[in-house]
């Protein structure tokens, strides 16, 4: 660095050097480390989507890349963007700031773009020579078929009904999920070379597997048997079940006749769908009767709100005792006891109505499954599976509504993916070990100062009057401008989005910027460990770790 000049006094003998000779990194007691944390949306997604990753592509306007990222986990984005109850948004760290990112609307936009532009999934793995039978063409079966096909296996779906789609067709009314969307996404899966046998009810799983030469089987027949209660009535024809009515909506030329005043019994999403469907079929009054309180209804709150806005009437803390000879419904008032459970009060009332539709949940048709050796059916009538989705019978996997879980399309799609990965590993004689999860990027990890306030792009809704009289889709999608806007509201929780904050705020120039897409590196020669980078990282992607001193 510096040289002594023997002929001049010491104080002026040293040549100028750079402070780069002074390695201030030795001062450090803590070191900053870049980390990736798990965003709460990804964590909450039952289908295991990497939501943050596809929002990042969408934010840059690369919708096809965004769609392809979503398709890595979920083959039905246009459907899911409409029918999923978006737990991702419930978990979104943006909620306390202004509003959660409207994730489902962006997903729907991507799904619709894909259908419009005719994007097809990328070619999958080379053929493995293995054959997998999928029983049931609902969301879970279709998801499994898609993932298995991408993994290189030959897949055949056998479906008992005349059309594929399962609950996406029979459980969700068209005003929430238009049928052409369902068909388009199913067709795209079939076009990958998945065989579909319709009107083929499997009665003997082992025989079908043996005859067809299948190496494994994924069972996803759903839960279609309506639960019933015993309500004495002089006219049994007045009592229908919601799943039957909703199915008829889709398969029959003539809409079911429910009369002018319809009572729906139950408090779940199916009850709400049923009441809203009754309204659309011309009922003057659609009355939901539920034995517990409004707060205890399993139906999603936004659906209850939409139903109320459409004029659906809600009678909670009420049970139906009988339909008397004059056709009146005798109902009993309930009251919550000290434990918060409803108890009869002995107070009776009557409701006049033309029909009663039961929406009390569904059971799994387990008859033919019980015959398979080793398969366990628990007391709730659902199939027991291990963490790898395999039943007690080697090579027979199951998922969707027929296994213990929350019964939603998204959970079903997630099961399909998970089962496909385990089936793939099992076929190769291995076990699928999911990679370890990152630490959750909670609100406490973020520095939200750096995000501008931006309210959720409102999805334009059709006005209430039009909703009550038609089966047109209620919510319209985002257009490109507001989809982009919406995607850009993502906070990128837990994962560096290259905002340059750490690079800018370091007083010691100890952050090295590696260039677009390459993120940053710390220069520990000079980093003093002040921690400003970690404190000012908006998304919580830097952690301070104690040095070993």
């Amino acid at each position, binding site marked *: 660095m*510096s040289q002594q000049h023997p002929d001049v006094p010491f*104080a002026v003998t*040293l*040549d*100028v*050097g*750079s*402070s*780069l*000779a*002074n*390695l*201030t990194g030795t*001062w450090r007691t803590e070191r900053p480390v870049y980390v990736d944390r798990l965003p709460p949306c990804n964590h909450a997604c039952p289908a295991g989507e990497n939501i943050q990753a596809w929002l990042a592509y969408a*934010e*840059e306007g690369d919708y096809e890349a965004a769609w392809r990222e979503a398709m890595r986990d979920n083959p039905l984005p246009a459907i899911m963007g409409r029918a999923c109850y978006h737990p991702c948004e419930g978990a979104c760290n943006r909620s306390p700031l202004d509003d959660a990112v409207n994730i489902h609307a962006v997903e729907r936009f991507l799904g619709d773009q894909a259908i419009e532009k005719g994007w097809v999934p990328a070619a999958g793995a080379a053929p493995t020579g293995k054959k997998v039978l999928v029983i049931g063409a609902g969301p879970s079966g279709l998801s499994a078929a898609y993932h298995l096909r991408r993994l290189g296996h030959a897949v055949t779906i056998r479906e008992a009904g005349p059309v594929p789609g399962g609950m996406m067709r029979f459980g969700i009314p068209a005003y929430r999920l238009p049928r052409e969307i369902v068909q388009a996404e199913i067709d795209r899966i079939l076009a990958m070379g998945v065989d579909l046998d319709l009107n083929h009810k499997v009665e003997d799983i082992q025989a079908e597997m043996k005859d067809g030469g299948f190496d494994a089987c994924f069972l996803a027949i759903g839960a279609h048997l309506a639960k019933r209660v015993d309500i004495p009535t002089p006219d049994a024809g007045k009592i229908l079940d919601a799943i039957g009515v909703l199915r008829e909506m889709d398969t029959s030329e003539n809409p079911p006749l429910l009369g002018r005043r319809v009572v729906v019994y139950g408090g779940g999403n199916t009850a709400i769908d049923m009441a809203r469907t009754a309204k659309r079929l011309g009922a003057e009054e659609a009355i939901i009767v539920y034995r517990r309180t409004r707060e205890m209804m399993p139906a999603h709150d936004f659906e209850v709100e939409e139903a109320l806005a459409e004029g659906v009437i809600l009678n909670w803390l009420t049970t139906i005792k009988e339909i008397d000879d004059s056709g009146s419904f005798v109902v009993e008032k309930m009251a919550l006891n000290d434990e918060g459970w409803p108890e009869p009060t002995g107070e009776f009332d009557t409701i006049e109505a033309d029909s009663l539709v039961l929406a009390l949940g569904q059971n799994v048709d387990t008859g033919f499954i019980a015959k398979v050796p080793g398969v366990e059916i628990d007391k709730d009538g659902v199939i027991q599976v291990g963490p790898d989705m395999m039943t007690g019978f080697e090579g027979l996997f199951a998922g969707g509504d027929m296994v213990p879980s929350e019964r939603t399309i998204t959970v079903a799609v997630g099961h399909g993916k998970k089962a496909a990965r385990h089936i793939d590993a099992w076929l190769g004689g291995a076990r699928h070990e999911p990679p370890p999860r990152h630490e959750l990027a909670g609100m406490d990890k973020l520095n939200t*100062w*750096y*995000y*501008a*306030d*931006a309210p959720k792009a409102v999805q334009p809704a059709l006005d209430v009057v039009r909703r009550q009289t038609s089966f047109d889709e209620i919510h319209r999608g985002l257009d490109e401008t507001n989809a*982009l*806007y919406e995607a*850009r*509201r*993502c*906070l*990128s929780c837990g994962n560096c*989005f*290259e*905002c*340059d*904050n750490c*690079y*800018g*705020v*370091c*007083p*010691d*120039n*100890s952050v090295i*910027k590696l*260039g*677009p897409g390459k993120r940053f590196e710390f*220069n520990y*020669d*000079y980093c*003093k*460990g*002040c*921690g*400003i980078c*970690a*404190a*000012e990282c*908006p998304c919580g992607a830097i952690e*301070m770790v104690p040095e070993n001193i």
Partner: protein
Amino acid sequence: MSGKTSEQKIKFYQKGTFTVGNRLVDEARRSVQGSMERSNAITSGHRACQGCGEALGARYALDAAMRATGGQIIAVNATGCLEVFTTPYPETSWQVPWLHSLFGNAAAVASGVAAAMRVKGREQVRVVAQGGDGGTTDIGFGCLSGMFERNDDVLYICYDNEAYMNTGVQRSSATPPTARTATTPAAGPKPGNVFGTGKNLPLIAMAHNIPYVATASVAHLHDLERKVEKAMAIRGARYIHVFVPCPLGWGSASHDTIRLARLASECGLFPLFEAEHGEITGSIAIRRKVPVEDYLKPQKRFAHLFKDGDGIERIARLQRMADANIKRFDLQRDAKEAPL
């Protein structure tokens, strides 16, 4: 107040709007500090404390001045932390021509350098003088006032950490009321620096009717860079007063440097404004208003205010100072989002 700060609007709400870099805006509108080509006027290895606000503020300001002038600047430095920690003999951290003379004469030396450049016909070479609050508001004040009144072509930047930190945290005329320093101990009936003392140098600079005066903060990088660039586009005497927290002197955590600077502006105690020829032309609105306690509490120099509740009246008085600033500089209007 007329003619609000001319902030550019951006098209969309974006993630990271207020961050150093924002890859969603045009290249030309990105910050100097986000650029891979930034000049790093102060290089690594300097001996500033962990989390030094002044090291950061000086790099922000000089890098912006270098971009604005194509690197044609000479820096003159008063004595102070910035001078000491960047140039322990025989090393230097400066990657720009740099000159240090005495504690009190930085403004006069800068005037001389500017005159020399003018005489040599090299007026494209611009001069930036810099000092701490001690070298600016106390010791160098006479020379600085002369530089202003002669309208010499110098940008003087004061990095204000509110005391003489380099020599052991003695009070300066920029030390706020109630702050504990080595010379204003937290003892007696009026602990810390007393109310009714000190001076507001940006307002004094404005009284000289110079072309440009501004306050800035290390917590508002985009605003700081914009003000430096604006100053470099003007000839004549210009003054920028940058708020730079000092973890050592303030008794704050090193990672809180930017947070404290942000809270100082968000509570109203350090208003961000600019003025041309003595008239205020704009201010940065408060985005998330906080009480002064939020700013005071993380600092040990104000710890005595929170002991036994006997600081309540003094905190209220500081709050009234903040409220007066908010009124005077119109800080609580609808905050403009996206100030790039």
